[in-house]
């Protein structure tokens, strides 16, 4: 990290000697419109996809925490996408969402609905990408499942005796005890969403097209590194990302005092 901080203060193309430029790379970031575009794309993705992923993973975990037939098979099936190679899955999504031969638009045609250019029209690309992100909720799902199994049955029994409905038990027993797990998944989700890269790289061929609508921050950083060979500038971008994630994480920890409940002396937080 220290090395990258120093590289961020140089102009270095990897082949020629590095030139000391001080804070010029950080100043250039401030005036680079593509930095703002990349931040915008990434922020929209994070703001929508993280809550959606958490909600979906929690819902799935609650459903698969029930005693149902084939429970193990379902759990495996829903976790499987998380261990599938991202590149292979991304290629699959390219085909699924192709307007010409993709299965989604084929369905729309069957229903006599207009087809959509899911991944080539900038009006729809982010929505499509957010939908694709739901493919990999398996990790959060497994952590939620473990959290749910840690909720003491005695508390549920006591709530039933007091006349609580299923929703009441979930709202007033399960959810509060699950807040540390939600908090963990939230932090990890935010970090992962700001580091989104592989799927975007495969789907856009590394360009972030159409019209930079999928130019996520790390994709831009990659291009500055390995297409433009601006190692100094790319290191400055990496530090920018580090600071953003640090601020968001610290803010989350500060806010966590208000809603995360730890079952230990002192109660909340």
């Amino acid at each position, binding site marked *: 990290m*220290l*090395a*990258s*901080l*120093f*590289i961020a203060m*140089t*102009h*270095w*193309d*990897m*082949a*020629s*000697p*590095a*030139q*000391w*430029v*001080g804070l*010029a790379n950080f100043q250039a970031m401030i005036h680079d419109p593509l930095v703002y575009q990349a931040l915008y794309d990434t922020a929209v993705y994070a703001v929508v996809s993280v809550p959606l992923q958490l909600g979906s993973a929690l819902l799935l975990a609650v459903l698969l925490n029930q005693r149902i037939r084939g429970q193990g098979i379902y759990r495996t099936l829903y976790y499987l996408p998380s261990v599938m190679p991202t590149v292979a899955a991304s290629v699959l999504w*390219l*085909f699924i969402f*192709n*307007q*010409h*031969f993709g299965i989604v638009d084929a369905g729309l045609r069957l229903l006599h609905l207009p087809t959509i*250019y899911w*991944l*080539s*029209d*900038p*009006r729809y690309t982010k929505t499509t990408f957010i939908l694709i992100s739901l493919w990999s909720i398996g990790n959060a799902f497994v952590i939620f499942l473990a959290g749910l199994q840690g909720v003491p049955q005695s508390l549920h029994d006591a709530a039933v005796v007091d006349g609580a409905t299923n929703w009441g038990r979930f709202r007033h027993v399960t959810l509060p005890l699950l807040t540390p797990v939600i908090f963990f998944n939230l932090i990890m989700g935010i970090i992962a969403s700001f580091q989104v890269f592989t799927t975007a790289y495969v789907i856009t*061929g*590394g*360009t*972030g*097209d*159409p*019209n*930079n609508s999928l130019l996520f921050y790390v994709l831009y950083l990659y*291009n500055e590194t*390995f*297409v*433009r*060979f601006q*190692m100094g500038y790319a290191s400055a971008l990496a530090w920018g990302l580090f600071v953003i994630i640090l601020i968001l994480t610290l803010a989350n920890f500060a806010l966590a005092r208000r809603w995360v409940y730890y079952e230990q002396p002192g109660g909340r937080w």
Partner: protein
Amino acid sequence: MGDQLTRRRFLGRAAVTGLGLSGMGALLAACGGTAPAASSAASSKASGGSKVTLQFLTLNGTPEQPMYQGLLNEFMKQNPNIEVKMVNVAGGAIGIQQKLLVMLAGGTPPDVFWTHTYITPGLASISAVMPLDDLIAKSSYDTGAFLKPAYDDFHVNGHQYALPRETTAFVMWYNKDLLTAAGAPLPQPGWTWEDLIASAHKVQSSQNYGITNMTDDIYMQLVKTWQNGGDILNTARTKYTMDQKPGVDAATFIQDLIWKEKIHPTPDTAKNVDFFGQGKAAFQPLFTVFETVKDAKFSWDIAPLPTDGKKVTRVASAGHSICSKTQHPAEAWALLQFLESTHAFDVYVQNGVSMPSRTSVFNEAMAHPGGKIVLPKSVSVIQDAFGYGRPEPIAGNWVAVHQAVDSACLNVWGPQQEPASQALSAVASNVDKLISEKP
């Protein structure tokens, strides 16, 4: 930009700013490329008759990897004091450039590497590639043995930076069966884009496209701009000019094929499906590598690109270079000559590697097709194309220039159908910056 940094001064500043020694150690490792490589894998003792180890950076996959391994084994047998280790990467010219720079930065540069006309000028500008002029002169190497356009492709600022392995030109492939079945005429000498569009309309149906592949990168955008009398850069290669009328007309022409004439798939669909190879497109402009149709169940041939104006096409070459940081230039030159020998070219032909750029092998392959090279019936179209073809006006970070202009073109050709003048102008300042910078 500030002053140039030596490693010592660089580290000095690190100390001044209060960082610990551990950070400096990491920095030393990270900035290994700023000084001549001292610990290359190729730095085995060259003198005293002991074995020299060279690194050869090239493409991965089949046939490249096994083909080169076979050649390297022969070379090592002939030169028992030289061991050659092959480093393979994916991603074509871009992959090679990335890997080369990473190896340079890591202090383990390759000695010889596969190269492409796209990346040579940029690598030359940062002195990553060795000029071959002295080596050629000292050994009286016969450079006239190569096809001239291919050899000249690697001539940059008065220096020769590579010897060519293969060269390609853009021509129009066509599916004879589809055209005949649709009652459309086959391409005739002097045919125009209007002729192509008329034929394509006859083939166009829910199953088949009239034409595909016009949106592959910016190749046809560039050729059509040339045909219209324009170029991507000005003559001095200092300013972007694709946003002028010839370029705008070219992009609009391709946009019309997709959205107005409706005879070409959208760019994302064209990119993901080989319609021509599947026998579902009448035409496709592409370079002269015909591997994808070697097992075609339909009859096909090639024609010159249609034109409404200037007869021109794009040529591009691949070859072999020596890295400027090699510790063993003599051994690297020996390997380079071996990879450019008639014998090596015969192996390339046997493995179906594109159009050989050694004239004798090229002529033999054209006259008596053999090996795995797939050739069309109208071979003369290829030979002619090398006569009127021209390379791209490469400048600065050409890979990034392609990416920037391609993004603009996709906005024109994609569903948003942005006006060409607007989209192509939007990237002007960025391209001007890219052509002035090193890769």
